[in-house]
C-alpha cells in the first residue's frame, strides 16, 4: 500500500507538430474581420468580425468558416457506431444516454427481437421491454436518423449491436475518436474494444461473447489475466485521451505495447501516462501515421 499525494505539475501538452494548416482559437478570439465569409457552427458575428464561441480548430470550406470544438458533447451523424446507456424505458422506446445534448431514442421497432425473429411488435413485446433492456444497461447501436431537433434515433438491427455484458465503459471526449471503417476491434491481447463515435469506449473480454442477439448476459467471473489486460487498456485509453491524441486501434495498440514495461496500476500516475502517450505518438509518427 502506497499513498501518493503530490504537488500539481503544470500539465503540458505533448509538443504539437508545427503545422500551419491548423488554427486553434478560444472563445472570443477574432477569426477574421473580413466580411466576405459565412458564419458557421461555433462562430458569432460581432462588431463586424467573426469570433469563435468555442475552443477548437478553425475549419474552412470555401466561404464557410466554422470552429470544431475540442471538448463538446457529441453531435451525431447517420451511420455512427455508438455506445450508450439506457436511462429510461418508455412506451415503445428506450431513452439512451449517448453524451449528446439530448438523449437518444431507441424504438422498440428498431431492435432485433431475441432469437432474431422478424415480425411486428405486439403488445406482449411492449410489456417485455424491461426484460430486453432495463435502466443502466449498456448497449452498442448505430445512428439510424438525426431528427430535426438533433435527437438521435438509434437501431440495433444487426447481430453486432445490442446489449453489452461485463466490461468497462471509459468516457473520453467524442472528438478524439477517429472515424474508421470499423469501430469494433478484437485486440491481440484478448480484449474486445468498441470505440463509440460518441466518445464512450467499451472494453470487454472476448470470452463473454455469446451470439444470442445480446439478450443473455454471461455473469461468470472474468479471469485475472483478462482483467489485467482490460485495466491496462483502460489506463492506456485514458492516457491517450489526457494528451488529446486520436483514438483508434493502432494508437491504442501502440500505447498498450509501450505500457507493457509498467504494472497496469502505475499507468494511473500522470507522468507515466504522459510518457506512454508520448512514446505512442513517436511510434505513430515513425510508422507514418498521421
Amino acid at each position, binding site marked *: *500500500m*502506497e*499513498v*501518493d*499525494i*503530490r*504537488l*500539481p*505539475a*503544470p*500539465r503540458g501538452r505533448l509538443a504539437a507538430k508545427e503545422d500551419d494548416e491548423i488554427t486553434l482559437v478560444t472563445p472570443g478570439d477574432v477569426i477574421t474581420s473580413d466580411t466576405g465569409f459565412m458564419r458557421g457552427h461555433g462562430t458569432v458575428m460581432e462588431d463586424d468580425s467573426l469570433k469563435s464561441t468555442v475552443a477548437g480548430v478553425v475549419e474552412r470550406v470555401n466561404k464557410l468558416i466554422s470552429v470544431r470544438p475540442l471538448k463538446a458533447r457529441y453531435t451525431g451523424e447517420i451511420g455512427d457506431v455508438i455506445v450508450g*446507456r439506457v*436511462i429510461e424505458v418508455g412506451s415503445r422506446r428506450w431513452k439512451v444516454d449517448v453524451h449528446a445534448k439530448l438523449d437518444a431514442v431507441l424504438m422498440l421497432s428498431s431492435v432485433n427481437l431475441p432469437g432474431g425473429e422478424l415480425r411486428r411488435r405486439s403488445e406482449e413485446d411492449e410489456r417485455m421491454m424491461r426484460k430486453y433492456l*432495463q*435502466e*443502466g*444497461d*449498456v448497449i452498442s447501436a448505430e445512428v439510424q436518423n438525426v431528427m430535426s431537433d438533433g435527437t438521435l434515433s438509434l437501431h440495433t438491427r444487426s447481430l453486432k449491436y445490442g446489449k*453489452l*455484458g*461485463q*466490461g*468497462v*465503459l471509459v468516457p473520453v471526449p467524442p472528438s478524439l475518436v477517429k472515424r474508421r471503417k470499423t469501430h469494433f476491434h478484437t485486440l491481440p491481447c484478448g480484449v474486445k474494444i468498441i470505440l463509440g463515435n460518441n466518445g464512450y469506449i467499451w472494453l470487454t473480454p472476448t470470452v463473454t461473447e455469446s451470439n444470442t442477439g445480446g439478450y443473455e*448476459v454471461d*455473469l461468470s*467471473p*472474468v479471469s*485475472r489475466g483478462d*482483467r*489485467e489486460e*482490460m*485495466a*491496462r487498456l*483502460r*489506463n492506456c485509453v485514458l492516457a491517450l485521451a489526457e494528451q488529446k491524441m486520436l483514438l483508434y486501434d493502432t494508437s491504442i495498440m501502440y500505447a498498450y505495447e509501450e505500457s507493457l514495461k509498467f*504494472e*497496469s*496500476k502505475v*499507468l*494511473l*500516475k*500522470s507522468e507515466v501516462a504522459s510518457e506512454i502517450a508520448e512514446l505512442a505518438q513517436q511510434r505513430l509518427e515513425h510508422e507514418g501515421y498521421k
Partner: protein
Amino acid sequence: MVDVNLSEAEKTFIVHGIQDNFREDGRSNEEYRQMDLETGLMSNTSGSARLRLANTEILVGVKAELEEPKPEKPDVGRLEFFVDCSANAAPEFEGRGGEELATEMMNLLYRAYSASTVLDVSSLCLQSGKLCWVLYVDVLLLECGGNLFDAASIAVKAALFNTKIPSVKVRQEEGEETELEVSDDPYDVRRLDVSAAPTVLTLSKIGHNHIVDASQKEEACCLARLMMAVTASGSVTATVKEGRGSLDPDSITEMMQVGKRVGKAVNEKLLETLKEEEQKGLKRKTVGFLR
C-alpha cells in the same frame, strides 16, 4: 451521493474484480489514486487548498474572524464548517439538491474535529469569554469522481495547515475598552499545528470485501460504508456508518484495522507533501485550475 446507474453485468464485473483484489483500474483493494494538492492559491482567504483525486476536485478556504466565544466554552476558539456542493459538479446538486450530502459532510467534519486532542483550540482564544478566533472552513465541491469525504477532509487539513492568522495583541487597561493591536508586519502570523488533525477514510464494503478510495462506479456497487476520521498516530476520532446495507461486528473491526493503517499512511504522506510545498516557498508558481 451522486450515483451512476450501472448495469447488472458491470456491477458483477466490479464485484468479482474486488474479490480478486484487482480493481477496474488495476489498483488493489487498499490503494489510493494519485492526489494533486496545492495550498495558498486564494489570496482573499487566511488559508486555502485545492485537491484533485482522479476526477474529484475540492477547493477549501479558511477565513479567520474575531468573535465572541460560545458562552458554554469561554476559553476556546472554534472551527465552523460549511460545505457547498456546486451544481457544476453534478446537475442533481442544483437548487437544494446537494444539501443532504453537504450536511452529511459537515456533520462528519464537525465530529472529526470535535475531539480536544486534534487541534489546540484554546490557543485561538484571545480573551476569555470575550474574544476568540473563529475559523470558518468553507469546502466547495467542484467535481465528483468518487470518494468525496476523504478528499474533502484531506483538503481541509491542508487548508488548515496553510492558514495564517495575524498576530494580535489584546490590551486592556482599567475601566477602558479592550484595544486590539494588529502587527504591522504581514509576515508576523501564527500557524496552526495540524499534526494531530484527522483525515477521513472511507471503507466501502462491496461483496464480501472492503476497499479504500472507491471510484464513482464502485460507490454505485457499495451497500454499506464505514467512514472514520483517523489521525497520524492512528487514533480514530469519529466513525460513521452510511448506506442501507448492514455490517457485522467482525468485519467492522477488520475494516477499522485497515482504516487505521491506510489513514496513518495518508496523513504521513500529506504532511510530507505540505512540508515539501512550504519549503519551495514563494518561488513556487501556483498552478490553480489551468491545466
